[in-house]
């Protein structure tokens, strides 16, 4: 079946511009995660969505970052007034929801490579 898809695969933008990154999770997965992977770093948790619950935004690095998930499916990560330090690969993952305290395998998308010049 179809996996997690992300678009665009690559995005080059000028400093100060806004960008939108899209994630289409696996059908039936109610949990959706965004991560950022910088060169030589691990994956940094950004935000988590579960069904219609309020998202966990505890990982967003600044108020320039926001995300939404429409209809419990597609999610968009928006970065306003991009800075060079925002350059990274942004990964989206989805999973079934096993309830608090448990965790199902996360399936990752191919990522969006963002370059801010």
């Amino acid at each position, binding site marked *: 079946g179809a996996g997690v898809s992300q678009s665009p695969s690559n995005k080059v933008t000028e400093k100060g511009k806004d960008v939108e990154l899209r994630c289409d999770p696996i059908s039936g997965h109610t949990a959706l995660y965004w991560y950022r992977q910088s060169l030589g770093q691990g*994956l940094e948790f950004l935000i988590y969505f579960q069904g219609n619950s309020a998202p966990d935004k505890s990982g967003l690095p600044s108020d320039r970052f926001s995300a939404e998930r429409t209809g419990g499916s597609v999610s968009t990560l928006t970065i306003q007034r991009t800075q060079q330090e925002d350059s990274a690969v942004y990964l989206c993952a989805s999973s079934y929801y096993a309830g608090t*305290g448990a965790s199902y395998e996360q399936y990752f998308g191919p990522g969006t490579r963002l370059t801010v010049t």
Partner: protein
Amino acid sequence: AQSVSQHNHHVILSEAASLELGCNYSYGGTVNLFWYVQYPGQHLQLLLKYFSGDPLVKGIKGFEAEFIKSKFSFNLRKPSVQWSDTAEYFCAVNAWGNNDMRFGAGTRLTVKP
């Protein structure tokens, strides 16, 4: 918040050598533990996971990992690596009650044919 340390940044081995990649986490409560692998040009995929029960877990492609609670460790092992194991390996921890998954910085494994 929990954090994850992977001690080896880059490991180079010859085929048939044994592999052990270290992973330590800092969190005193109950955790779920994972190893993910990213082959060149591919997505991150799950290698193995530990939720509860037998602390020695077996994953795909002959990999295994042992959870040692007293050492806060979850090291990945494989008795005999192959060239096709060349990839980046990430250890991850999810604390019970938390939504986020904390990943280590990754270990790049290069296996020479």
